[in-house]
């Protein structure tokens, strides 16, 4: 019985309740929320230290009690390396998000305590999704996490927030309900085989190994559709640009940075080990979707006029890479994908934050309303550039390592798909640099900047224009992200060491041998 995960789970929940009761006292509410998120980060460090990647145990820090014995459902928690890095990512991003949203202008009549309370509630849900080792419990968190996100978008989002919130919720709920059919299917299959049904993940992995391929394919599809909606794979992606664009910046970071990773995490934790035969048989289908997503997402990102939608489309392209690495079935590509999940959270989260900072100055989301902003806000321009470079995977930044691993690991098994996806790297350079050029380079122009300026002729003068560069809070928020971008760019080993044994275990559960390792022998 390990209490670390339970503490990680309950702490934000308590924080959420406390903050909710601080209505009308926004400053205290923010401080309390930040305090809780920092303690949570410390706890995550404790969990990281307690986890021993070399021990060989598939799940660690486990704890379990009976919940609904009639259905063999337990309240059981545990992490492998993949789940651990995701939990660490949430814990890291949460203080950043809270700091970033510190002085956000909320829609009229909404209180900051409500906003921060929902953020912390989200954190509980997300930790639960990654830490649950009972399929029923996973499903519960999977659905429960929708509720705070729905309210975050619907209450605190942009002008079209109601539509976006509804679309987000219905897409995810539909996916969840299809998955529910498969969850029940798992229960029934295990009941047929063991006499008493169970939803314990580890038991199910052994039960499903010998299940007929046709059964596996049906159940696989139920899970896959849910996860493909979450980690949006084309053609199930259309909710993300709307939700991402309308979500308040902080919620957007969590949505794209962590919440969507539930999908790719689900591929690794549920689709592959539970349905090995189906995974192998259907891998080409997934790879096609992944590659289409890379190209399609990149092309649409090039054409966006709205900066937040732009970030959302770049994410669709990145999710294509992650899915490619997962279904290429090699340890390098798998480890690369998980590292990509982390890096994407950092770089896209940072991109979202800097876009939010641009918007808070100009009051517009449209790229055409800006121009030459780097003259007024050199520091913001520089940090936008760093976020962009990280997003396009420049060598030396974090994303390069993961993208490289995915491509080099996928090549031996799937040369055709890999070659096509490299086009995505070129397009990434195009969309990132072009947006940067339009917003930050050249003479100062665009209605958003000129209208804020104090008078005619003042806009070009940084001293007299109304546009201020980053303040100390904003720099403090972005600094840890920049540090991680560089550290993981040059020295990703600590993270890879945690990930790799779990990827190896996952691949052996699927029953594939590593092409690269074989050549080495």
């Amino acid at each position: 019985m390990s209490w670390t995960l339970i503490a990680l789970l309950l702490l934000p929940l308590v924080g959420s309740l406390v903050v909710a009761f601080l209505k009308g006292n926004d400053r205290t509410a923010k401080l309390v929320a930040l305090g809780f998120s920092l303690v949570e980060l410390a706890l995550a460090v404790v969990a990281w230290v307690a986890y021993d990647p070399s021990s060989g145990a598939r799940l660690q820090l486990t704890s379990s009690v009976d919940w609904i014995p009639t259905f063999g459902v337990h309240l059981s928690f545990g992490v492998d390396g993949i789940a651990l890095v995701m939990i660490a990512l949430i814990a890291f991003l949460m203080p950043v998000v809270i700091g970033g949203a510190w002085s956000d202008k909320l829609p009229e009549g909404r209180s900051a305590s409500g906003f921060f309370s929902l953020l912390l509630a989200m954190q509980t849900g997300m930790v639960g999704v990654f830490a649950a080792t009972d399929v029923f419990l996973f499903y519960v968190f999977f659905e429960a996490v929708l509720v705070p996100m729905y309210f975050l978008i619907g209450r605190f989002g942009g002008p079209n927030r109601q539509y976006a919130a509804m679309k987000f919720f219905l897409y995810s709920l539909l996916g969840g309900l299809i998955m529910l059919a498969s969850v029940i299917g798992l229960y029934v299959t295990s009941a047929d085989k063991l006499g008493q049904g169970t939803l314990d993940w580890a038991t199910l992995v052994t039960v499903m190994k010998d299940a007929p391929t046709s059964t596996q394919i049906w159940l696989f599809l139920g899970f896959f559709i849910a996860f493909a909606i979450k980690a949006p794979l084309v053609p199930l992606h259309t909710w993300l640009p709307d939700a991402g664009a309308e979500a308040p910046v902080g919620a957007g970071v969590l949505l794209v940075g962590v919440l969507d990773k539930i999908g790719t995490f689900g591929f690794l934790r549920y689709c592959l080990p539970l349905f090995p035969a189906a995974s192998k048989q259907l891998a080409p289908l997934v790879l096609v979707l992944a590659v289409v997503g890379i190209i399609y997402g990149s092309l649409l990102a090039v054409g966006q006029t709205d900066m937040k939608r732009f970030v959302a489309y770049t994410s669709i392209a990145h999710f294509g890479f992650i899915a490619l690495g997962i279904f290429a079935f090699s340890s390098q590509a798998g480890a690369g994908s998980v590292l990509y999940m982390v890096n994407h959270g950092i770089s896209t989260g940072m991109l979202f934050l800097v876009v939010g900072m641009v918007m808070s100055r100009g009051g517009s989301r449209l790229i055409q309303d800006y121009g030459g902003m780097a003259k007024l806000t050199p520091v913001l321009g520089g940090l936008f550039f760093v976020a962009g470079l990280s997003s396009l995977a420049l060598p030396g930044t974090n994303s390069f390592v993961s993208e490289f691993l995915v491509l080099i690991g996928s090549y031996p098994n799937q040369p055709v798909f890999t070659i096509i996806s490299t086009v995505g790297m070129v397009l990434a350079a195009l969309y990132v640099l072009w947006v940067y050029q339009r917003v930050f380079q050249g003479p100062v122009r665009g209605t958003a900047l000129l209208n804020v300026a104090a008078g005619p002729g003042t806009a070009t003068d940084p001293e007299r224009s109304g546009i201020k560069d980053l303040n100390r809070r904003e720099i403090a928020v972005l600094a840890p992200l920049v540090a991680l971008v560089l550290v993981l760019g040059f020295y990703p080993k600590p993270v890879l060491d945690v990930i790799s044994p779990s990827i190896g275990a996952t691949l052996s559960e699927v029953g594939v041998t590593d092409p690269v390792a074989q050549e080495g022998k």
Partner: protein
Amino acid sequence: MTFLAQVELIKPPEIEYSAIAPVLIVLGAACVSVLFEAFLPKHQRWAAQVVLTMLTFIGAGTALGLYAGAETTTAQGITTLSGAVAVDRPVIFLWVTLLLLGFGSILLIADRSVEPGGAFVADAAVRPGTVQDRAQATRTGMQTEVFPLTLFALAGMMVFVAANDLLTMFIALEVLSLPLYLMCGLARRRRLLSQEAAVKYFLLGAFASAFFLYGLALLYGYAGSVKLADIATATAGSDKSDTLLFAGFGLLVVGLLFKASVGPFHAWTPDVYQGAPTPITAFMAACTKVAAFGGILRVLTVAFERTNWEWRGVLWGVAVASMVIGAVLGLTQTDVKRMVAYSSVAHAGFLLIGSISLTEQGLSGTLFYLLAYGFTTIAVFGVISLVRNADGEATHLSQWAGLAKRSPVLAGVFTFLLLALAGIPLTSGFVGKFVVFAAAIQDGLAPLVVVALVASAVAAFFYLRVIVLMYFSEPAPDGPTVTVPGAFTTIAITVGAAVTLVLGVWPSFALDWAGAGGFIF
């Protein structure tokens, strides 16, 4: 043989008084209640009726508790009154459910704080729209006949679920239906709508009863007996006419499905739910549903299990129709009571899936679903009765806009209840769906479950629409106010919401109890 000697030959049946004591207590109290109406002065009746009804529930509950607690010798139940009534595990579960839900409804019916004088007309004989009618709307008296009518209806429901032959069942059906027809017409406000609902319900209900009776007659022709057990025996490899059997079965089931408001026999449901006084709607939606499905379960399992191969396909189609009708037509509703009515049609489809599973899991799952759904429904209607303007209840959806701002607690409770109806985890609605669908998949009804899940997703849209209205829209300046409820309504809503939560988080005890045993016949 002398006349007296012939009388000697008629043996009175054995009566197990302790087993049927709960029914006798409710029926006896209903008779006393009628006497109250006849002999007490008008101003004393309400108080006397409330006290009597409460005592009835306590008495019936105690009698049931004593019998069920002491039931060690006849663990699986008995039949009594020469086999006309069975008191077995499902019946005890249903009786407890009915008494609990009936008690909740009575709390709503007895409440006089929300609407001064109660939700019921002061003088039912006054023509609607006249001067006298406007005068009665402001008077604080009410037709206290509603109390004996409720008790009679409840007793009818209790006999209905325990009836072990079709004649007893038919009489119980009439005993439960006739008071309901009257109660529907007793609304204090919008009396034309209320009376229209009563007439509609009565006419359609009369047809349904006729169908039931015709089916009964044909089945008697087939089996030579009205006992469920004899019909079951007759279906076992006999050379009797199948035409009689299936025509009789079809007509009988139509009568039952009508009462359960399963589509396409649901046409009365929206009108009656909308027109009836809200406490009566709650009583109908919760208790009638329990009684009707209790009857359906017993008839299908006991009498027709052997022939399920022939009729299952038909009920399969009925279940699909009900779910689709409920979910799709619910989308177009603009009145919150009509919306809940269509939601109940969709839920009836889910319940029918459990009922045609014909396994132990199907039985226990359906019973659990009934318990969970009943409590949620009572709380839902309790909340609806609180949102009012000068004309009475404000049930048009547009009037609910921005309710969260005016009354955050009420909006929060209602959101929780709607999420329960939508089947989001950590509510009883989710566990109910899970157990019913698990039973159905186990019995080979997987395609039906997929349809049900898609229907759930569609239905979620209209629940969410209400949440959107309450939270994300601005309140209208002349919008309705939320009445501060008195003790009775507060208790009903609190208990309903609390049970919804408890059964969602900790359902084991209720699941075990629902699965304690099967039908005795």
